[in-house]
């Protein structure tokens, strides 16, 4: 089937799903999956077959004829959207069923399809006006999904913040698209690399799409939205919606010329985003907030790669730029897969226990072995440990940066600190994720709710298994995705399409596969030996305590405490400690909370000041007609005085 037909089938299924899915969940699920498969088919033709689809209609929307395009860059992101969108649709069948959420389940299905449809439209729109419309609709449908459970105050607050931040970003995009259209003379989007005067527009692109992607100071909406949204929504927001921000940056940095400083700035912003994102993640006690901040970190890694690509371009098509850029692209997929997996697992935990507070969980592996194992898989992947997929993409980024360093060009001055920061970020990610998995799944249950948890059903487990399988496959055989990556980088920068660079993964070769099989072998061997030698179960020894209680366990807060302490200058934790006093101390307590520093110490004070000024100015607006006439008279007199003084306008 042709690409156009497949995409129309996909859009048609989603639209029908919106209309009919409210009443018939099974029908909706089938249609959504069909839409995802059709879109995947179209992407497959572009990415594997090298086709490209460009379609311009006769009819007009808003005075502009509809122009759609699916090239390799769009297809790369559309693939991710289809996989995660489809998997999450299956997941919500049990997770957000009519039985559990009679009020919002039908709304969820409708908005879900709107979200998929509008995100897909963003990816294929090749007209600035329509791009903006699709972008806005996508943002709004995201809002409605975040606030499905809107009776909760915190959810509504998160929704508002999301909407406000999203519109601040849209404002930049509005400026960008109108300026672009004014200078080019058309809303049509496409390659305009030979117009150097357009380069400064890149900063608008970076700010506008950066808000959606979650760059460091612009990430404020992300943690609360991801934590308070239903888990399948968190998964698609983290896994795909953030990537649409990345898509914007990739798309327009490929189509338009970029300023010389772009590479430096993007790498710098990326490295800082990565480091601070993971530092914030370390200090969280809310499982989903921790995952959300880890998304900020991963966006940082992706930006470092993109920055490497841009830097490579300004240094005259350096081959290392392509490596770093390909790494960023692969990380877009990888992060989409493992972060969705992690959010799904967090959703299962939430489903089973009703809490996201890690300090109330623990020992869940017993009740939820599948979820625990799948979360562990995601954790290994997100820490970029071999042999899973996170390593493959970070390895590419590293490779590009190292080549930049050894090339001994000026680029080395930014690539060197970026490498060190990436390594530190990686090590901190390990702290954060060992903490998360251990506090939630290992040890003894800390509360009764953790003791009475239950495993997720097959409809929730299936999508998680699929995503885990993708993580493992890409991790073991990254060689498979290299041809696709070269196609995308070739479309992004035509100069990179010609001379085929030999796959760097050929060197890595079967090393991950070898490690994986060795691991399996040795684990089985040790297990067998333990079984042969016999084992007995005893209480945890714990240095002689006869009655260890669950409360004596190390908590997540204390586990991350050492590393988080290094970031107190930005985390600014709020701490209230009541020490035990006297011979028979009654009670002691420690309250610790990590604020959203940027929001609470940066944006809210500024907002308060603006509000105060506005309140003061508002006194001028009181509804007394005679005063308004006085304003006009004073104004006119002022103007007259200016004219009399001989000031020329």
């Amino acid at each position, binding site marked *: 089937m042709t690409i156009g037909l497949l995409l129309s089938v996909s859009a048609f299924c989603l639209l029908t799903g919106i209309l009919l899915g409210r009443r018939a969940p099974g029908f909706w699920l089938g249609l959504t999956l069909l839409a995802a498969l059709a879109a995947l088919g179209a992407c497959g033709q572009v990415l594997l077959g090298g086709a490209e689809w460009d379609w311009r209609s006769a009819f007009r929307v808003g005075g502009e004829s509809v122009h759609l395009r699916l090239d390799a860059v769009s297809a790369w992101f559309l693939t991710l959207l289809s996989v995660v969108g489809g998997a999450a649709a299956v997941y919500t069948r049990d997770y957000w069923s009519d039985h559990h959420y009679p009020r919002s389940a039908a709304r969820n299905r409708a908005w879900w399809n709107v979200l998929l449809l509008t995100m897909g439209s963003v990816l294929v729109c090749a007209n600035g006006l329509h791009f903006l419309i699709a972008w806005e609709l996508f943002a709004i449908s995201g809002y409605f999904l975040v606030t499905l459970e809107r009776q909760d105050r915190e959810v509504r607050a998160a929704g508002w913040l999301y909407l406000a931040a999203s519109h601040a970003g849209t404002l930049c995009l509005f400026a960008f698209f109108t300026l672009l259209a004014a200078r080019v003379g058309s809303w049509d989007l496409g390659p305009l690399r030979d117009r150097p005067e357009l380069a400064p527009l890149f900063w608008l692109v970076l700010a506008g799409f950066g808000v959606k992607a979650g760059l460091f100071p612009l990430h404020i909406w992300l943690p609360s939205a991801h934590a308070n949204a239903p888990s399948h929504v968190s998964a698609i927001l983290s896994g795909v919606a953030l990537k649409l921000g990345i898509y914007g940056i990739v798309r327009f940095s490929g189509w338009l010329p970029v300023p010389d400083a772009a590479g430096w700035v993007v790498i710098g912003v990326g490295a800082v985003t990565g480091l601070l994102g993971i530092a914030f993640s370390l200090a969280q006690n809310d499982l989903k907030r921790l995952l959300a901040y880890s998304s900020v970190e991963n966006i940082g890694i992706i930006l470092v790669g993109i920055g490497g690509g841009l830097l490579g371009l300004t240094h005259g098509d350096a081959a290392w730029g392509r490596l770093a850029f390909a790494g960023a692209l692969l990380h877009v997929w990888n992060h989409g897969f493992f972060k969705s997996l992690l959010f799904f697992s967090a959703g299962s935990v939430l489903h089973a226990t009703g809490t996201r507070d890690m300090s109330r969980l623990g020992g869940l592996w017993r009740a939820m072995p599948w979820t625990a194992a799948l979360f562990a898989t995601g954790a290994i992947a997100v820490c970029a440990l071999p042999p899973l997929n996170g390593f493959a993409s970070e390895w590419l980024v590293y490779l590009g940066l190292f080549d930049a360093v050894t090339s001994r060009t000026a680029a080395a001055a930014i690539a060197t600190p970026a*490498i060190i920061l990436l390594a530190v970020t990686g090590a901190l990610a390990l702290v954060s994720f060992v903490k998360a998995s251990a506090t939630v799944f290992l*040890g003894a249950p800390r509360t009764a709710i953790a003791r009475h948890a239950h495993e997720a059903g097959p409809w929730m487990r299936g999508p998680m298994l699929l995503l885990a399988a993708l993580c493992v496959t890409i991790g073991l055989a990254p060689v498979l995705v290299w041809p696709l990556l070269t196609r995308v980088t070739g479309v992004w920068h035509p100069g990179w399409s010609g001379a085929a660079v030999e796959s760097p993964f050929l060197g890595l070769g079967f090393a991950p596969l070898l490690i994986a099989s060795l691991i399996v072998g040795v684990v089985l061997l040790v297990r067998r030996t333990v079984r042969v030698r016999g084992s007995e179960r005893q209480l945890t020894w714990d240095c002689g305590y006869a009655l260890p209680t669950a409360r004596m366990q190390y908590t997540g807060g204390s586990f991350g405490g050492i590393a988080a302490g290094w970031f107190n200058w930005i985390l600014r934790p709020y701490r209230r400690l009541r020490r035990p006093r006297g011979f028979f101390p009654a009670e002691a307590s420690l309250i610790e909370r990590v604020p959203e520093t940027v929001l609470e110490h940066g944006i809210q004070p500024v907002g308060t000041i603006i509000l105060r000024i506005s309140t003061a100015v508002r006194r001028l607006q009181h509804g007394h007609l005679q005063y308004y006439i006085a304003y006009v008279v004073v104004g006119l007199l002022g103007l007259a005085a200016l004219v009399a003084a001989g000031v020329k306008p």
Partner: protein
Amino acid sequence: MIAALDVILRLAGWLLLAPLLPGIINRVKAWVAGRRGPPVLQLYYDLARLWRKGVVLSTLVSPGFIAGPAIAWVAVLGAALLLPLGPAGAALGFRGDVLLLIYLLALARFGTTWAALETGSAFEGMGAAREVSYAVLSEAAMIAAVLSLSVHTSSITLTTMLAPAAGAGALLLGAGLFAVLLAENCRVPFDDPNTHLELTMIHEAMVLDHSGPPFAVILHGAAMKLLLFALLLTEAVVPIGELGWLAATGVLAGGVLLVTIGVGLVESLLARLAFRRVPLLLVTAFLLCLFALLVAWRGGAS
């Protein structure tokens, strides 16, 4: 066929030689203290004994308690196979293999800390927390060291990076890597492998509840990690690539022996640091490696 034989020989070498190092360190410590000390082969006896023993498992632990140490052991072994042995080269070498080595060590850390946290014990939580947190700093030092070698040789393949050593910055790099070696292998002044049941431990605190074969795997993995770091240090400092086959092997063995004796001496002569000083020393190690990087940078510019 030759390749398979080569890998098997290497494997055997790593597996058999590694437990020698802790024995030598203990001998040095005994000698400085004027004791007779345990035999050099003590760890071999211990490993054999542990492998034959049964296991006591905490009632809380999942299968990950046994899988964790096994994963860590494989990861260290994998890293070891990536490390070139002087003129013999590496069993597996490719562009960017040095990053795989660093991340395999991180995987090992994931495995051991995961297993430690299985038991729900406060001590093991404490040890694991320290392990992963201080590793952040030692990883920064490692990557700076790798960068300096990489800048010096314009390569990111271990075989080429380690052949001519670090050049002018070798002394700085050696000092930095030695500190990392001490921190990563639970040695004084960062940690004391001999204390048990104290609040001041890192690695030993993590393995309090392990016994039998899994414990043997942990001990053997730790020994291999020590050998790995000792070899890495030697090769980063001594330009082995310029020596002949026999001389290179001799230098490698001598270097490892020297590092081991050095560890023993440090352990005998220094006291353990207070915990809040550990990050300071590790940051110093990082700075040393960073200066080595600057030296390498300057060296290439001329």
